[in-house]
C-alpha cells in the first residue's frame, strides 16, 4: 500500500498539473463565449513546440534548467498568441465558431507534427540531451499547492477584477456589451492570451515533465481530456482543481489496472468513459449559483448590429 502511494503521488502530480492548468486555461477562454474546439490541436502543438524549443535552446545555450525553463516560457507565449488570434478571429469573422475551431484543431495537429519532427531532426544532428523536469518525492506536495494557488488566482481574476467581469460579460451577452462601448474582440483577445498561457504551460509540461520526450502524435486526445475536466468542473477554477484529481487518478491508474489483468481496450477507454459520464452528470445537475452556469453566448456567432 505504502509502495503504491509512493509511486502514485508523484506520478499523479504531473498528470494533475497538466490537466488542471489546461482545463483552467480552457475555462478562461470559454467564459468569454468562445467555444474551445481548438483545444486538442493546440495542446498537441504546444507539447510539440516545447520539445522543439527545448532541443533548440539546449543546443544554443547548453542543456540545463535554463534551457528547459525558457522553452516552457516560449511555449506559453506562442500558445497565448495563437489563442488570442483564435478568440479574436472567432469574434470578427461572421462564420460559425465550429468552423474556426475545427480548422484550428487540424492546423494544430499538422503544425504539431511538423514542429516535433523539426525537433527530431535537430536532435539527430546535434545529439543534445534535454534536461527534463523531475520532481522529487519531497517537493511533490508543493506542486499540488501550486495548482491550488493557480486555481485561486484565476478565480480572483475572473470574479474579482474588472478584467474578469469583462470576460464573463462578453461571454454572456456580447452585443449588449459592445453597445456600451466595449470592444468585444479585444476583451476576447485578452481572454485568449490569459487562457493560452495556461494551456501552453499545460502542453509544455506534458512533454517536459509528464512524458519526458516526444513521439509522433504526442498529446493527441489529452486536450480533449482537459476539456472534459473543464466542463466537469463547471468552468469554475476551484471546482476544476478538485474534479481534476479524479480524472488524473483514472488516467494514471490505467497501467496499473492493466497489470492486474484488465483488457487493454477497456483500460484505454476508461478516461473517456469517465469524461462522458462526468459531462452527462454535469449537464443534468441543477446548478444553484449562476457562477456555475454555462456562459449564455458560448459558441454563438457575434453580430454587432441587430440583424433583421
Amino acid at each position: 500500500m505504502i509502495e503504491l502511494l509512493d509511486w502514485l503521488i508523484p506520478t499523479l502530480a504531473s498528470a494533475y498539473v497538466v490537466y488542471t492548468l489546461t482545463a483552467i486555461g480552457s475555462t478562461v477562454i470559454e467564459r468569454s463565449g468562445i467555444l474551445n474546439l481548438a483545444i486538442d490541436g493546440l495542446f498537441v502543438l504546444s507539447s510539440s513546440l516545447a520539445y522543439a524549443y527545448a532541443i533548440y535552446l539546449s543546443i544554443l545555450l547548453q542543456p540545463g534548467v535554463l534551457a528547459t525553463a525558457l522553452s516552457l516560457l516560449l511555449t506559453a507565449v506562442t500558445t497565448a498568441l495563437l489563442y488570442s488570434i483564435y478568440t479574436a478571429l472567432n469574434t470578427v469573422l461572421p462564420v460559425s465558431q465550429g468552423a474556426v475551431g475545427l480548422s484550428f484543431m487540424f492546423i494544430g495537429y499538422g503544425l504539431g507534427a511538423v514542429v516535433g519532427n523539426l525537433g527530431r531532426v535537430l536532435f539527430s544532428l546535434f545529439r543534445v540531451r534535454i534536461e527534463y523536469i523531475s520532481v522529487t518525492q519531497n517537493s511533490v506536495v508543493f506542486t499540488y499547492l501550486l495548482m491550488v494557488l493557480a486555481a485561486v488566482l484565476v478565480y480572483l481574476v475572473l470574479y474579482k477584477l474588472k478584467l474578469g467581469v469583462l470576460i464573463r460579460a462578453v461571454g454572456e451577452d456580447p452585443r449588449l456589451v459592445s453597445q456600451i462601448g466595449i470592444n468585444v474582440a479585444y476583451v476576447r483577445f485578452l481572454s485568449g492570451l490569459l487562457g493560452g498561457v495556461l494551456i501552453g504551460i499545460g502542453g509544455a509540461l506534458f512533454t517536459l515533465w509528464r512524458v519526458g520526450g516526444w513521439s509522433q502524435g504526442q498529446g493527441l486526445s489529452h486536450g480533449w481530456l482537459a476539456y472534459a475536466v473543464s466542463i466537469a468542473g463547471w468552468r469554475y477554477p476551484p471546482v476544476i482543481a478538485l474534479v481534476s484529481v479524479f480524472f488524473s487518478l483514472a488516467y494514471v491508474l490505467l497501467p496499473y489496472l492493466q497489470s492486474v489483468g484488465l483488457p487493454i481496450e477497456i483500460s484505454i477507454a476508461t478516461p473517456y468513459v469517465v469524461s462522458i459520464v462526468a459531462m452527462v452528470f454535469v449537464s443534468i445537475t441543477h446548478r444553484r449559483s449562476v457562477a456555475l452556469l454555462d456562459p449564455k453566448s458560448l459558441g454563438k456567432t457575434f453580430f454587432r448590429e441587430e440583424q433583421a
Partner: protein
Amino acid sequence: MFFPSRQSFLRVVDVTKRFPGVLALDSVTLELYLSEIHSILGENGSGKSTLAKVIAGIYVPDRGYIEILGKPMKLLSPVDAVNYGIYYIPQNPNLVERLTVVENILIALKSYSAFARVSEVRSLIVEESQKIGSLIDPEAEVSELSYTQRQIVELVKASLLRARVLLVDEVTTYLPTSVREKFYSYLRKLKSENKIVLLITHKVSEAVDVADRITVMRSGRIVKTIEKAEFDVDYVRKLMFGENGYISEPPKNVLLKDLTTENRRAVVKLDRVWVISESRGYALKDIELSVKPGEILGVVGISGSGQRELAEVLVGLRSIRSGRYYVDGLDVTNRGPEAIRAAGIGFISETPLYHNLSGDLSLVENLALATYGKLFLPLKLLTAKTRELMEKYGIISTSPKTPVKVLSGGNIMRFTIARELEFAKKALIVLNPSRSLDEKFKWSFINTIKNISRSTDMSVIYISESLDEVLQVSDTVAVINGGRIVGVFSRESVEREVLEKLMVM
C-alpha cells in the same frame, strides 16, 4: 431668434436609416447645443430609439453622418462614441442578466482599468443610489431586479459615467415620483455643467416640463423643432399625432361593475400564498386575492414590492411555497404554466421578450405559439389573422413574417397585447403594460380591456406601478407593499391619498 451663447457640439446630418421594409429615419438633421436638455417626442415607431442609437454609434446610417465638434464621423462605433463621452441609456435596461449590479456598472466605467477590483466601486454605487433616492443592493444579480430597479441601475450608471452627451431613452416612465424628480435635477445639473441631455419620451408633459427644446418626430421624419417659448401641450400633441389623431381624454369611467350582488365563484383565487425570493426571505407573503367574472382588479405598488413575482405566480412561472392557487375552483398550485394557460388565462408582461414572445420568431409564429397546440399550423390562416391584428392594433412591422425583436419597443408591446387579448378567454394577467406605449395607445388599450371585461365576463388582474392607470381601469384596487397585500378597496369608496400612503408605508 438669435442665441449668442449657443455652441454646437454634435450634429446629425441628413441621416437616413432603412430597415427591411421600414424607413426608420428619413433625412434627419438635428443640431445639439452644449448646455441643453433636448427632448425627442414621437409616437410608437416614429424612429426615436433609432435616432439615439445612430448617435451612439450602435447603428450605422445608410446615408448621412454624425458630426462631432465640426468633424464628420462617417463610421462612428460605440467605442468612438463613448470616447467622446456619448452614452446611451436604452429603452429596455441593457444589463447583463447574470452579472451583479456592481459588475454591470463597473464594465461601463472607462475610468477604471482592467485591473481595478470589483470591490472598489461598491461603495460608490451605494452612495449614488442613495442620492437618487432608491437604494439598490450592489451585490444583487440583475435577473432578480424588477424592471424599474433595473432602470434605476441604469440611472446610477449614467450618473457615474461623467457623460458629455447623455441619451436617455424613455427610462423615466415608471420611476417613483421622488426618484424621477431627483433624476430631473441631475439632468439639470448636467446642463449647468455644459453637458447635453437628449431626453426621449412619448410623454408630452414630461418634455414640456423638463426640456429646453423639443423635436417632434413622426414616421422617421422630424416634424419640427420648437423653442421653449413655443411650448404648449396641445400644440405639441398636434405635432405629434397630426391634427385629429389624438384621443386627448382618458376613458370616461364606464359603469363600474356591481360586484356585491354577484355571488359567483371566483375565477382566480390565491389562498394564503407564500413565495420564496431569490435573494432572501419571501417575495410574497400570505397573499389572499380573488377575482370574480368580469371584475377588473388593480394591484398597485411601488417598484420591487412583489408585483413581478405576483404576476409570475399567477401565470405559473414561479413556484408556490405554501398556500393554494385556484382557477375556476380547480387547484392549479404548482401545476406549471401550461395548465394555467390551458385554463384560458392570458398574460401581458412588462418584458414581453422575456415572458411572452420569442424574439427570433416572426409575428405569425409567435401568434401560433400562443394559440395553436396542433402539430400542423394553418399558416395561411394565421398570416391573415396576424395582418388583421396588425391593422386593428396599429402594429408597425414590415410584414407578419418579420422577427419580433426588430419591432420598436411600443410595437412589441402592442403585438403582445393583441395576441393575449385574442387568446385570453377566462382571465388576463397584466403587468405594467403601458411603459413603452404612447399615450394615445395606452388609453385605447385601457378602454379595450374595460369593454372586453364588461361584454364577455373576462376577469382582469391589472398589476401596475402607476396609480393613475390602476384608478382608471379597476373595479377593485389592492395595494401591495413589501410582498403583502396591505389593503383591498372598491374603486368608488377609496381616496387616492389613502392608496398613496399604503403604497409607500
